């Protein structure tokens, strides 16, 4: 593994190695001294062409906990807004001595381009590209589910037989795509639930089931985990695509309210990648319930990103080339 571009690229063994490493990293984060030395002297660049607070902070915290220096580059107010190309930006960063690039970009495929075009020679980590992939989010979600499922003895385990329901705007969601790929690799059984307008063409060949009816899915599928995707209010208007008639209607049919929360099996967890629209896709009751793992997902995110940075960067360069 030289780059992390897509959750679909990970084999079962690689995914489990990342999750196991993250488990060790998480352990160290309960100590008084959270900083570890393996990336001492290295520089990680956060190259963010799209607004993001939590993902950027999470990567920044992860890199700093491993003793790397972090340079944050956001497109706003930078040379990019003056028209600089991705290639020139990348080469500028490489010339400054970046050892790894974490990239978020509104265009699907930009991280892949950066990794394979030969502009730079460092590992590239995809922190979300367009409507394509967000692999570290899928990894932290899988990590959260695995911990809840296997408790203390998670090492080496996958998610075989876990039943997961993902609800919401699948069409625009890189979180949904990454999760479907990784969960299928780890053996989980996934159902996507969305209004027909918010399911992409071609989703029927994905390794998961599809449904338009949330209540029926909860009743039939008895999920171990239900993941609510963020729905943007502007998708409602005709300018935003007119994907659903009103927030109220969406919330009634696809929101996780008190009644649906009670209909879930007792052990089921409620997940959300954040930021949440309380009252739209998730009720405050569900978001604040003891089953909600929203806050846990954030702290798990740091551990998972530490694991990814460690596995991509800590070893010798030559070995990384051999592995690819």
């Amino acid at each position: 593994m030289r780059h992390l571009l897509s959750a679909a690229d990970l084999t079962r063994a690689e995914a489990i190695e990342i999750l196991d490493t993250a488990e060790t990293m998480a352990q160290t984060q309960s100590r008084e001294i959270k900083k570890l030395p393996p990336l001492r002297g290295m520089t990680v660049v956060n190259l963010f062409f799209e607004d993001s607070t939590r993902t950027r902070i999470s990567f920044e915290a992860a890199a700093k906990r491993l003793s790397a220096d972090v340079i944050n580059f956001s497109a706003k107010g930078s040379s990019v807004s003056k028209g600089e190309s991705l290639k020139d930006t990348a080469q500028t960063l490489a010339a400054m001595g970046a050892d790894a690039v974490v990239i978020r970009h509104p265009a699907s495929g930009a991280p892949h381009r950066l990794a394979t075009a030969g502009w730079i020679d460092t590992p590239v980590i995809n922190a979300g590209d367009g409507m394509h992939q967000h692999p570290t989010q899928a990894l932290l979600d899988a990590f959260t589910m695995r911990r809840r499922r296997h408790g203390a003895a998670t090492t080496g385990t996958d998610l075989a037989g876990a039943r997961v329901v993902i609800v919401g705007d699948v069409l625009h969601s890189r979180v949904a795509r990454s999760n479907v790929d990784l969960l299928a690799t780890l053996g989980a059984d996934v159902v996507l639930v969305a209004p027909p307008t918010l399911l992409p063409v071609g989703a029927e060949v994905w390794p998961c089931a599809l449904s338009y009816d949330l209540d029926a899915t909860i009743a039939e599928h008895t999920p171990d985990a239900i993941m609510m995707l963020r729905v943007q209010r502007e998708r409602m208007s005709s300018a935003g695509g007119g994907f659903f008639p009103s927030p109220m209607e969406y919330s009634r049919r696809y929101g996780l309210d008190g009644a649906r929360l009670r209909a879930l099996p007792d052990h089921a967890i409620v997940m959300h990648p954040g930021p949440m629209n309380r009252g739209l896709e998730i009720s405050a009751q569900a978001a604040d319930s003891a089953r909600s793992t929203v806050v846990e997902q954030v702290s798990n995110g740091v551990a998972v990103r530490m694991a990814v940075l460690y596995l991509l960067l800590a070893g010798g360069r030559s070995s990384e080339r051999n592995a690819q």
Partner: protein
Amino acid sequence: MSSGSLGTIVLTESDISRALTRIAHEILERNKGAQDLVLLGIPTRGAPLARRVGARILSAENREGDSVDGIDSLDSLVGALDITMHRDDLRRQPTRALEPTRIPAGGIDDKVVVLVDDVLYSGRTIRAALDAISDIGRPRAVQLAVLVDRGHRELPIRADYIGKNLPTSRSERVRVQLRELDGTDAVVLHGTDAVVLDGTDAVVLDG
């Protein structure tokens, strides 16, 4: 053991057992009992060795009728300390998998920590372990127990408890096999020309 033609057995199962018993008693003698004692094994093979020494310490304490203040089981006496992220050769090798670290519930602050490893060679592993310890707490003292000291130190480090001093040349390799990981107990010395290992997954240890 099929290693007769491939290396010399320098410690047999009973040798290892006697060495560990002696180390356990030396630890008790020097620290005047098991109070405030924490044994930390360095994975891979230091971890099961620490548990074996710990079990001997517990049984010796009980037999002598001493109080076992605060030490109610092996898990509160023995832990494991992974030093991978503190190694100074991290970037010279392919990325290493991390091993679990487990610190006994009482922590290590103001305790006497005995590091346990299988082979003491360059001393670099122990230096890494000392760094790892300082991230976790501040012990009253740190001591070192090893099954084999093969010499050739590259750092000013020495062991407090040694199972066997084994004069070696740098070109030789010392292989420790433990029941818990390799199915058999033995320490084997391989000469320079010993290339083929037998069927076990034992690792050649140069740490």
